[in-house]
């Protein structure tokens, strides 16, 4: 089944991931800028990182027939360093011109400190000024509920287009508040610390999948890009049709990301060759 992996940290993964994803239906990955596991000291390090994900990584993915796009941002954890963040923010518009950069992300909050909030707001303002999409990271574990409320509070006070903003890492306690406010929501499947394939399927059972993106992130920590495939299997067991699964795992990412014309993968559906209307193939 064709699918799009909308949140994937390719630089932390080996080529074997690409090969196995290509063999199992992934046609595109989208790579947000994120925390490297340590706090970087120099703005230039970020700029080289942005070059890596916007110039080099697409060539690595292309070896396996996978399209690669990316986002640029100072991640919420390093946004605590206001001075460094401001210098990087000043350089980010240069990257908006690149053919595979879709927007600003992942910005957002980590511990919801005043510095983080200021830099998050600056990221969103920059994105709106340059008509970019926005990907927002919400905090981990015990910080998530408060941080998600804070993200929504900050956005509410700004002149934003909710349909161009994706609030990621929602779980049971944050799904409805983010989507009801008009934003796209993302469920990130992790082995331990975020959502699981079964719980994501439960949320789709309960709320439907309008403005929902399911991803498995995959980074340098315990993570597994194939958890989205596990989620597909779980939903198939629950009776979702092939076209519904394509709608969730391929078309929804195409719809959201396609708001930036650089992302040119169109929604699809499966039809019988005899021309009958699509059923539960």
């Amino acid at each position, binding site marked *: 089944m064709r699918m799009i992996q909308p949140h994937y940290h390719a630089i932390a993964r080996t080529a074997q991931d690409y090969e196995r994803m290509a063999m199992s239906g992934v046609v595109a990955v989208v790579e947000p800028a994120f925390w490297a596991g340590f706090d970087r000291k120099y703005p230039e390090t970020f700029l080289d990182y942005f070059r890596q994900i916007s110039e080099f990584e697409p060539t690595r993915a292309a070896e396996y027939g996978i399209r690669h796009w990316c986002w640029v941002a100072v991640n919420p954890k390093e946004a605590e360093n206001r001075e460094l963040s401001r210098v990087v923010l000043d350089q980010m518009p240069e990257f908006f011109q690149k053919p595979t950069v879709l927007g600003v992300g992942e910005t957002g909050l980590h511990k919801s400190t005043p510095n983080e909030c200021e830099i998050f707001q600056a990221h969103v303002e920059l994105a709106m000024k340059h008509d970019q999409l926005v990907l927002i990271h919400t905090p981990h574990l015990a910080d998530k509920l408060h941080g998600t409320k804070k993200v929504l509070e900050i956005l509410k006070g700004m002149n934003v287009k909710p349909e161009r903003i994706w609030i990621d890492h929602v779980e*049971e306690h944050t799904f409805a508040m983010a989507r009801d406010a008009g934003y796209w929501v993302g469920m990130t499947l992790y082995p*331990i610390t975020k959502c699981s394939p*079964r719980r994501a399927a*439960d949320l789709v*059972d309960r709320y439907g999948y309008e403005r929902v993106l399911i991803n498995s992130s995959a980074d340098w920590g315990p993570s597994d890009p194939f958890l989205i495939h596990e989620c597909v299997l779980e939903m198939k067991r629950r009776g979702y049709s092939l076209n519904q699964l394509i709608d969730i795992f391929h078309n929804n990412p195409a719809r959201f990301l396609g708001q930036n014309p650089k992302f040119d993968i169109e929604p699809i559906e499966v039809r019988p060759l005899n021309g009958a209307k699509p059923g539960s193939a």
Partner: protein
Amino acid sequence: MLTPRKVLDDYFLETRCQLLEIAATLDRLGCADQAAASNAASAGDAAPDDPRRALLKAMLRVLVEDNGANQRAQRLLELHSEP
């Protein structure tokens, strides 16, 4: 033997994850019950008297008991054993 702090450091997040899965499974069962109650077509699968319901509740009670014996895993398996 691990120290108490090491047990918490090593297993807290994993246990949190496992408990969330249990909570989600019970929610799933509750939602399925509600759907079956309002849908005659699936009423035959409602299984209101399925003994596994009571067994799950009994097992959950064992988890929160603290009688000092530290034999919760053994007791769960005994609960789920043929006499």
